[in-house]
């Protein structure tokens, strides 16, 4: 009797999961294995013949100073973006959970930039930085607008940060709002009866209780910060002099523009390892802070 139902279970699993697993293998696993294989070749991406060259690509990769420039840019970008977007997102959500007038309108307004695609957004903001900012500077004399936006290393970095946060803040905010709304009012009331002020309530009651949302937001924002590409391409294009070239763009340029598919594959393997290790550590750290109810 038991074995029969087990058999049935296997069949059920095959029927319901099989097609998805097959697709997953074809679309995700196979390219990953092929990519790992190409990283040991000198394939140019076009020719039908290539040679296996061992770990030469990995050696070349670490000797290339541009690889390090783009890794440094990406890591710094991830740190700054993750911190800023989560602090601001939480702050906005906290404010917009209060009883304010027009709260729904405000929530919608902060969310809307998220609907626009990154590529278009990049071009729009490029126009704002290069054409509108100088005019504002001329009219008001504010130095911030008179900077050479996107023309120096620092302004290219912060320009990208500004646009990225402007775009994705609303998304983080929505998740935090959902987290905050799920916290029962009982805890807050209990805290206020015990004489806790609003900062103490926030620090000791609210934040521990929305920790699952924080874990999720940190994970997502870290992952998305690593994967930035469309905004990078359309806003700075990696310039000036390849200082704002994120690792994703560096991989693309290596594989396609420089026609070194093997080297590009090696870099993408490193990229995968970087993301897996960093997000894994981060999820583990924040998970531990979550409280079980």
């Amino acid at each position: 009797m038991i074995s029969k139902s087990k058999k049935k279970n296997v069949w059920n699993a095959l029927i319901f999961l099989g097609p998805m697993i097959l697709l997953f293998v074809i679309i995700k696993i196979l390219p990953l294995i092929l990519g790992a294989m190409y990283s040991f070749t000198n394939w140019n991406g076009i020719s039908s013949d290539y040679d296996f060259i061992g770990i030469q690509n990995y050696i070349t990769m670490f000797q290339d100073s541009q690889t390090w420039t783009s890794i440094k840019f990406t890591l710094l970008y991830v740190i700054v973006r993750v911190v800023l977007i989560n602090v601001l997102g939480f702050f906005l959500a906290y404010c917009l959970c209060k009883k304010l007038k027009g709260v729904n309108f405000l929530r919608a307004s902060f969310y809307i930039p998220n609907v626009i695609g990154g590529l278009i957004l990049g071009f729009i903001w490029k126009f704002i930085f290069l054409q509108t900012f100088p005019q504002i500077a001329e009219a008001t004399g504010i130095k911030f607008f008179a900077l050479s936006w996107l023309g120096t290393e620092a302004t290219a970095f912060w320009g990208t940060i500004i646009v990225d946060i402007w775009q994705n803040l609303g998304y983080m905010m929505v998740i935090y709002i959902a987290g905050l709304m799920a916290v029962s009012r009982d805890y807050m009331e209990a805290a206020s009866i015990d004489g806790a002020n609003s900062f103490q309530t926030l620090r000791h009651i609210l934040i521990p209780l929305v920790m699952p949302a924080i874990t999720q937001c940190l994970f997502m924002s870290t992952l998305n910060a690593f994967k930035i590409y469309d905004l990078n391409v359309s806003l700075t294009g990696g310039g000036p002099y390849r200082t704002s070239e994120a690792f994703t763009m560096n991989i693309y340029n290596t594989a396609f523009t420089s026609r070194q598919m093997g080297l590009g594959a090696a870099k993408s393997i490193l990229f995968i390892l970087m993301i897996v290790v960093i997000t894994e550590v981060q999820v583990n750290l924040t998970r531990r802070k979550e409280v079980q109810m």
Partner: protein
Amino acid sequence: MKLRKVFGTLLAAALCFTAFTGTASAEESSEEPVTLTFFHYKSEWADAFQEVFDALEADCNIRVVQESASSTVYFETLQAKLISGEMPDIFHMLVGKSNFDAWNTECADLSGEEWVSKVPSSIIEMCDYDGKLLAMPLAMEGYSIAYNKDLFAQAGIEELPTTITELREACEKLEAAGIQPFVNAYTDVAHVVRRMFTTPFAHRENAMEYFNDVLENGGDFTQDASFNAYYDFLDLTMEYGNEDALTMDFNTERSAFINGEAAMVAGEGMWMKSIAENAGIDINMGLMPILTSDNEEIENVLFNIPQSFCVYNGSEHVEEAKIALNYMLTSDAADKFFTVMGAYPAYSESSVDISAMGDMAMDFQSYLDEDKTFVMFGPSFPAAAQEDIFASVQKYLAGKCTREESLQEITDSWNRNINQ
């Protein structure tokens, strides 16, 4: 529930419709001509191409279906087509060693074709790879410095400068007349490297020999007079140009030039005419050499981009594709194409009236007749070095490194990448 029913009926109807149209086209196809696919990155030529292809279908029963992509993603798209088995029968090529290194295995040999002897030998030389002729040049686009004749006249410049000293004098005259001499947009690798960086390789005695040698054996550009002179020219354009050269994109640069906001733009050429016409602007433009030193003799050259096409050797219709290429270059329909698009034919026996194409084409013709043009060298540069050259030049222009450091970086990248 009712809505779902209506929706279902509509879906079923749509399905029947597509099924019927599907069978209808399948029946027709038995009488249809050979169909070739054609992939290019000159979307502004698409309509004019279509007229040539319509004539081709009427004359030779060969139908060509065209598709175009932006030049910035063209080669990546072509690569995707190759890998997915959808390689076009005829495809656009930017001729040069580096591009042929990558694509030569996919190109059919065009050596025996009739047109070969009637195309300028300087271009044929660049389309030759290991003794095979891999591409057919269709139209030439001359470039170097595009200048605004009216603004030059306004500043009282009667004779074109022929040395960098004279160019500086011209800039001063322009500034005195309240005209911005140069507009620069050093933000695009195609412009800064592939087009403009041809200059230091070409401005010397026996330039072709030198270039082939450094492509083969590498070189040292740091102490080279022509490279240093080229940086003098870059300095000059920055001195007499806009401040935001490192953030301005090429569309803004082009529109500034055709709107008369600056008198000169380097690295641009004959394509500016169709851009101005499309924008409905009437501008009086000429073409002059990039001037980097006071050696008039070696400075007096123009550069040339031959828009060329290859036949895919894995195509089922290689012979038909060759016929189509020949037709695109030599037929009456082709002449009409060149005239309408203002494209300079790469075919010496073409009956197109060059003088009707405007002053830039005439300027280019005079250099071509004296054999003082070079095919753009950029597409021959090692692929992996192109981005490095771009970054090093930008870094220099931004004042982040010295000329020696910039040239040293370029030399290192060049020598590291030539034999990849």
